[in-house]
């Protein structure tokens, strides 16, 4: 009775105005009440322990750092640096847009920070240079997917917490897939530019201009070294790295940029906590939901079912990827990770897949969801900045969907793209 009550209530509530967190919490509550098997106090215990994690503290830190960078001009400097390198390629600012997102991804952990902060700079600059607004919006949204794939990454922190997988290894695993995403997007930009008559192009920067842009962007670029260098050498944990990075970007603004006032910091801290609260309440409620699925042995039942089907592991893996991709279109990515990680991980491990490999794939799947309608955060943000309706924007994104899915398939069929770095760094 427990599982039907849980699933049924969840399906009824999730597609209504009831927030995702409450759909999860309320269906768990109904399941507890229907069964009478577990005391309700266990529910409180699951809610609390879902939030009680040291690794999760990195979430507000990464959000705060990206916000400070966006508002103190660091992101603009990175954009200029990227432009001095690739702006003259056919596709112009389209390439700049992708490269800036790749660089920014080395400091930020979410696609929203990329689309909302850096994205605004990218779109404004592309509008000034006469690019088709739909193209600008589309490439900005598409490249924002790279943010949570290249470390640091908030969804990977969440997956790592839920699955007990090393966040550091996941971070290492996301590195090459993130670069691959950037590469496939640039190829599409190149093809579009070649096939569109009169596509704008930028002047090539000379060595001196590049040096100036590099010097200007250098303090911001050091953030990448501080975060990734510290984490991968084992000098400090991802949470500690996130705190040091916050202090560093704060120090940069206080000492050099002087773009933020004390009241701005108050606002940034406040907004960061609201964003964190929205994520954490989903994690807390999903933790109760996932616990019920686990004690009712749903993963084991599914493993038995799949073993009986007698199909190859790759087919199952592809099917799981398709399900994640499909759900990502409707449900917030982090919620999917929190609900499904405890269910899916035992299955893929039974099939012989590496948890780091699966984690990066799962994150990639649900993050492609942030740019697909009807429910895609980055798509909404870019639509708001460009004033282009979501449906029109997603039509302009069609070629980029092809490249995102293409990169995903490459990662599925060539696991070394994900596993090469973790294996190299952590023997």
């Amino acid at each position, binding site marked *: 009775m427990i599982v039907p009550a849980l699933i049924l209530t969840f399906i009824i509530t999730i*597609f209504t105005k009831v927030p995702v967190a409450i759909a999860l919490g309320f269906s768990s509550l109904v399941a507890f009440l229907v069964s009478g098997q577990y005391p309700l106090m266990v529910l409180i215990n699951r809610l609390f322990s879902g939030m009680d994690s040291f690794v999760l*503290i990195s979430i507000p830190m990464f959000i705060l750092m990206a916000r400070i960078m966006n508002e103190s001009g660091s992101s603009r400097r990175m954009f200029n640096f990227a432009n001095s390198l690739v702006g003259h390629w056919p596709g112009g600012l389209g390439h700049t847009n992708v490269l800036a997102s790749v660089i920014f991804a080395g400091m930020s952990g979410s696609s929203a920070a990329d689309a909302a902060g850096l994205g605004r700079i990218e779109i404004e600059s592309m509008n000034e240079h006469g690019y088709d607004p739909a193209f600008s919006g589309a490439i900005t949204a598409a490249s924002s997917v790279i943010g949570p794939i290249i470390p640091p990454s908030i969804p990977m922190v969440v997956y790592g917490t839920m699955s007990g997988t090393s966040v550091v290894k996941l971070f290492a695993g996301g590195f090459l897939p993130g670069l691959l995403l950037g590469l496939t997007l640039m190829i599409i930009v190149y093809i579009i530019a070649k096939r569109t008559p009169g596509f704008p192009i930028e002047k090539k920067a000379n060595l001196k201009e590049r040096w100036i842009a590099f010097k200007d962007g250098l303090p911001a670029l050091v953030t990448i070294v501080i975060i990734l260098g510290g984490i991968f050498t084992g000098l400090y944990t991802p*949470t500690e790295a996130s*705190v*040091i990075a916050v*202090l560093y970007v704060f120090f940069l603004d206080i000492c050099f940029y002087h773009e933020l006032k004390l009241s701005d910091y108050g606002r940034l801290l406040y907004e960061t*906590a609201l964003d*964190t609260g929205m994520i954490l*309440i989903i994690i807390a409620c999903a933790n109760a939901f996932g616990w019920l699925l686990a004690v009712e042995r749903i993963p084991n039942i599914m493993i038995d079912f799949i073993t009986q089907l007698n199909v190859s592991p790759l087919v199952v893996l592809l099917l799981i990827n398709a399900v994640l991709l499909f759900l990502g279109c409707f449900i917030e990515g982090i919620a999917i990770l929190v609900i499904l990680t405890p269910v899916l991980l035992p299955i893929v491990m039974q099939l012989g897949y590496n948890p780091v490999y699966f984690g990066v794939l799962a994150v990639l799947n649900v993050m492609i969801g942030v740019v697909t309608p009807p429910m895609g955060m980055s798509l909404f943000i870019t639509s708001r900045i460009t004033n282009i309706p979501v449906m029109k924007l997603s039509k302009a994104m069609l070629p980029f969907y092809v490249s995102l899915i293409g990169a995903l398939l490459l990662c599925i069929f060539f696991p070394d793209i994900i596993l090469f770095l973790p294996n190299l760094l952590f023997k």
Partner: protein
Amino acid sequence: MNSKRLYRYFENINKAIIIFFLVATIAVLALQVFSRLFFSRAFAWAEEVARYLFIYLSLAGAAIAYKKDLWVSVDIISSKLSKRAKNVYYLVTESICFTFFIIITLVSFKYIASSKGQLTAALQIPMAIPYLAVPIFFVQMSIISLNKIFHFFKEKGI
């Protein structure tokens, strides 16, 4: 009930908690990591303090975000409803939220009472102190939710 004043009251208290706790979390962890890197000394309590501050500030943030209708939802139904049906729909969904909040609040009091005598691992303070975050902010969310329902009736003149 003067809802505007009540909202502002919650928001200001929560805002103070958030900013103070977030700064404190950063300070504690910075202290921890720098003392470890430069003086090879680690504080056993730092991690625990940071975790509990984090829970408080997250729930405070969640409560304000709920007030501002920022919680993520997947609403594919309401745009297809008539005006009348929309009203009923709103009441039903908001009641679900309220039911969830109020039950969690009530049970969490019981939970805290049953945790009597338990101490945290590093600080050796009662576990009730971190646990209190749950009722403090869920009671706020219950009131906010109830207020939304009251407000709805007032607007419709019922």
